């Protein structure tokens, strides 16, 4: 049966609309209680979930973020509705776990994923410019590996049960959040940890956060929205499709922030950010290269895991482990600057990425 492209979201207008919706939702979530210039940062919220589960004990970044749960479940619903749910896996899972770990460590040295690079820029945080340059540099190095034959190998079909593990895991996390809700003044509620101050204590109401996550997950699954892919495709193929979504997110969030009074240009005193420009650059370079080698930004990995892609699921679990490692071993930065072992982390992570990159060329 011959057919044309009929996915309206996979058009230039579609991806621009999706980027714009994410930008608007981010600004609105921030207005509704989420942390400033973070709003819907995938790495930060993954780190908060790791904290809520007690994988690290950084008291200021612990919250079971419903947005992340919604991303996977929204994508899962879209994939089911459009018959794109397809359990696959088996493409170098251990390498993907390590890439997820390293991506998270790099992101936490910068203090944000590519989504937050955009949202910090849209909030006026000049330090994010160095993160953006680092991200582009990391992805560019990734394209050099692709050109020299880098490939993590083919996936195979998996059982339906395997494909359902990530959506079910997210349902489980949602159940924990509902059964053990935050209690005022208590750092623990049942098995979950909750921040009493700091970014982890800033959150929008549960249903709002979950609804926003579900909606974005649905739209992103349809449009294939990916911030790393946006940069990669321009560098590698001069394809601007995903970049239009990236730019739409930036422009919309910027306009919304100006209207809502959330735009504060400058370098000093920016929310949950440090001013060590080189490490902002280097942290995001590490993360960008890890995302490129793994084939997607942290958001895209969540959306793919909702489609039944267990390789993306392994990356997500690796990033949760990375969040634990980053905070437990002093690799993560704070608003005062990089952690005590942040420099070593950048060097070691880069070395591991080079190892994975050079040893997987076919």
């Amino acid at each position: 049966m011959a057919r044309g492209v009929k996915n309206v979201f996979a058009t230039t207008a579609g991806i621009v609309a999706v980027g714009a919706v994410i930008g608007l939702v981010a600004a609105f979530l921030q207005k509704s209680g989420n942390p400033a210039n973070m709003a819907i940062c995938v790495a930060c919220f993954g780190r908060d979930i790791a904290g809520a589960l007690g994988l690290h004990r950084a008291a200021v970044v612990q919250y079971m973020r419903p947005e992340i749960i919604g991303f996977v479940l929204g994508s899962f619903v879209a994939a089911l509705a459009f018959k794109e749910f397809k359990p696959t896996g088996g493409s170098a899972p251990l390498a993907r776990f390590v890439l997820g770990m390293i991506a998270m460590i790099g992101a936490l040295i910068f203090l944000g994923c590519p989504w937050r690079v955009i949202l910090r820029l849209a909030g006026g945080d000049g330090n994010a410019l160095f993160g953006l340059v680092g991200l582009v540099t990391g992805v560019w190095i990734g394209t050099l590996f692709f050109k020299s034959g880098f490939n993590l190998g083919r996936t195979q079909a998996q059982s339906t049960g395997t494909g359902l593990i990530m959506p079910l895991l997210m349902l489980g996390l949602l159940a924990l959040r509902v059964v053990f809700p935050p209690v005022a003044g208590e750092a623990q509620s049942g098995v979950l940890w909750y921040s009493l101050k700091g970014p982890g204590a800033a959150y929008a109401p549960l249903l709002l956060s979950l609804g926003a996550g579900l909606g974005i997950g649905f739209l992103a699954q349809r449009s294939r929205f990916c911030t790393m892919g946006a940069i990669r495709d321009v560098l590698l193929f001069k394809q601007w499709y995903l970049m239009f979504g990236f730019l739409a997110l930036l422009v919309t969030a910027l306009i919304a922030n100006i209207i809502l009074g959330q735009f504060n240009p400058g370098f000093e005193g920016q929310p949950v950010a440090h001013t060590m420009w080189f490490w902002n650059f280097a942290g995001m370079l590490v993360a960008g290269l890890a995302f490129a080698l793994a084939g997607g930004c942290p958001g895209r990995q969540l959306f793919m895991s909702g489609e039944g892609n267990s390789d993306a699921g392994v990356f997500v679990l690796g990033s949760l482990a990375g969040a634990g490692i980053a905070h437990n071993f002093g690799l993560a930065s704070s608003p005062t600057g990089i952690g005590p072992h942040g420099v070593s982390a950048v060097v070691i992570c880069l070395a591991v990425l080079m190892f994975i990159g050079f040893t997987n060329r076919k």
Partner: protein
Amino acid sequence: MKHKVDARGLSCPQPVLMAMQAMRANGSGEIEVVVDNEASRENVARAAQSQGWSVVVDDLDGGEFRLSLAKS
């Protein structure tokens, strides 16, 4: 003879890279690319069209797609 590219089991950017390589190597004619996910189908079609190739997509069994690229 039709140039064939098997990109099943691969996720982007590999299918697009392989299709682009085939388009560059052949210059014109017919190329058949088989992929097994929607995102790759869309990306390969988009890349081929941007290079001036026509694209016809056939649904195969098991969620696979055959993209027939042609340029005269």
